[in-house]
């Protein structure tokens, strides 16, 4: 048996077909150029970001978080560390495949699903065995995340994961301060397409800080995918569909825009 065969058995035992491509809410979300900036979970410091590069259109980044110093001192120098692995994939389905990849690297025979234990994180989630919950795997939109305690003190990560998930899924309020990035153009390549066709979304932004920007796209009428460096909208139904875009800088200053695509039979 090779790795593909092993993955297939993992998929089967985790009922992959029953949840692959599904979302927890009504709205499809796509995140592009994701990065953590240290504000995601209060009480924790982002100690290090490690870029593991792109493999098969997936970009993997690891983030090591340390409990804030005061708390650490109370723990008498014991390590309280959370390691967050984020795989940014080109599509919702691919992020679920990445969850399988995470599971394939776990020796524990069957990780419990989050919802069965009352943990509502991401579109799909799996937990570690036992208490506290020191490890959560989940997918949100096109991102697959592994959040786990890796220090000498086992810490519960459910609250941390929920904070991160909120950060991923929230629609940030627009900022009106000077350094806020701006969306100069956001529109589809064609304003009217046929059902089952995809259309490229063009977005042009300005950034006074000239730093890193991350993007979020939301739509109820279809999914959003990335092919190489182009973002596409893929409608599910006929009608007029709105697509919202958000551009957020490293300071969490955000702007947004909406475009409409008409889908005909």
């Amino acid at each position, binding site marked *: 048996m090779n*790795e593909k065969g092993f993955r297939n058995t993992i998929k089967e035992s985790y009922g992959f077909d029953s949840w692959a491509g599904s979302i927890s809410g009504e709205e499809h979300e796509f995140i592009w150029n994701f990065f953590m900036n240290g504000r995601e979970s209060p009480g924790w410091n982002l100690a290090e970001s490690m870029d593991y590069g792109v493999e098969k259109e997936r970009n993997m980044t690891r983030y090591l978080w340390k409990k804030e110093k005061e708390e650490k001192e109370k723990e008498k120098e014991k390590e309280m560390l959370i*390691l967050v692995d984020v795989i940014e994939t080109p599509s919702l389905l691919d992020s679920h495949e990445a969850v399988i990849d*995470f599971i394939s690297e776990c020796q524990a*025979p069957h990780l419990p699903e989050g919802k069965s234990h009352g943990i509502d994180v991401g579109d799909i989630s799996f937990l570690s065995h036992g208490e506290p919950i*020191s490890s959560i795997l989940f997918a949100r939109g096109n991102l697959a995340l592994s959040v786990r305690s890796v220090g000498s003190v086992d810490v519960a990560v459910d609250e941390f994961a929920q904070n991160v998930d909120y950060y991923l899924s929230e629609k940030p309020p627009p900022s009106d301060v000077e350094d806020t990035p701006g969306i100069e153009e956001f529109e589809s390549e064609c304003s009217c397409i046929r059902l089952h066709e995809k259309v490229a979304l063009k977005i042009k932004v300005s950034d006074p800080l000239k730093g890193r920007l991350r993007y979020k796209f939301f739509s109820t009428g279809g999914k959003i995918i990335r092919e190489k460096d182009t973002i596409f909208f893929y409608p599910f139904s006929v009608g007029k569909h709105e697509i919202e875009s958000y551009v957020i800088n490293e300071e969490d200053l955000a702007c947004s825009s909406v475009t409409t695509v008409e889908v005909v039979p």
Partner: protein
Amino acid sequence: MKRQNPIVTGVSAFFTVEHNTVKLELRIMSEKFSEILYGFEVLPREQQPPWDRVKGVEAPETWKFREVDTGVQFFTTRPVTRGQFVFTLEVNEKVSQSITLCLINKNHQIIGVVMSKKKPAPFKIDIEAIQFNHDTSSLRNDAMNIRKDMKTEVIIPEWKKGAKRPEDSPAAYALEETKEESITIKAKFVMTPYPTGQFFIKAEDGGVLGALASRVVKFKNGISQPEFVSFKLKSHTIGKNGIQREDIQWKWKYRAVGEKEWHDMRTTAHRIYIVLREPGEPWKQQPFPDSQNPWTAVLEYACTWALNEKDADTASGKVTAAVNSLPGIKYDIVRGSTNYAFGSQFDLSKFLERLEGGTGLGEKVNCTDCAAIVSTFSNMLGCSLWQSRMGHTFRCNKVVVIGYTNWAVPFDWGFSYHEVAWKDECAENDSLFDACLKVDGDNDPTSPPHVPLLPVDIPFFIPGSVKYKERLVAPISRPYCKPLSDTRKRRVVR
């Protein structure tokens, strides 16, 4: 008209000049001055060509000096007897090949002159650089291609003047490839103040690399010819004690051709690693430089763990045992998740950071991490292990996982997969090394008493005997746990 003073015999003088400082050596060789000589003067007007000024700086014990006119007078209160005296003067102009000294009597009257002669400056030879890896296309006759870690290269020449610590000058040799070969190092020398000449140069001590026999080195324009001169390691002991990590020093010496006396040049310090053979993958010799060239940061641990071992399997066993007993890492008992290895990569830099007492990626590891660590460190020594899986989804006997001391069934059931450092085809009858857990080593691994056995060089399965599979896998799952040989890989390091 200039007064002519008589030339005195029985007194001689020599001097050297360095910058503006003149060291003057006065030798009284005859008793005939015992009652009349009380000192001497150095007068600018008596010099050829005349100086503007000269100042006294230092006089020998019982001597004094003072300014006279624009010159200096060195004197004693008692008559000078036989002996040798050194004086220091400051002259702010070019000094020719001689300095005129005017000898004085008790009344400080000039009684004669002595012409002090300039001494030839002593030659000096020094070592500038040493190349251990002087042929990056081969490791048969020199050291192999190495780097310090992911980010830092080892620059050739590995030793340069100024380097003091042995770890600043590392070199690694492959025992198998250098066996019965002529190994050389190359060194560059400089000579001052003369541009040409030839000298014998040798180096004493040298530890495992041995002393370097003397050879003639020619100099042109003050630099050795050729610039890097070869020295054969004729008395090395590479191979005698297997794997080594040794700090050595060479005491470099030189002597002029035709002379007997050896002069000290300099002592150089180096850290030498000896491995069994060319490191196996992920380590590569080519291309060079490259991030996958062997890292000294790994050699440091691997050679220490397997010190003196001469056999690959025994060396891998030592590495396995060392990894299993490492402080600061523990099995991830809640998920069994891979931490330092991921996909096709092994974050060796972060693991080394952890080994050094830093945070790294935390303390949690699983079997994949352990397999990556054991094979990567063993292969550095010239072993040839893979990281390969078995499985899938099988129940286990009680084991002791890394970082713990209690016997328990992992996850109260077993593993979805298990990964080890494995030999050859990673097939059933191939031996493996597992630093992740200890199995029960007695005849009945399914029940107490449990005798801890670290799986080292043990076949996965041999029909009719109790091998790794029987010790790890519960009887009910044995039919389902097989080598997943297609998963074998050697993760690249980063």
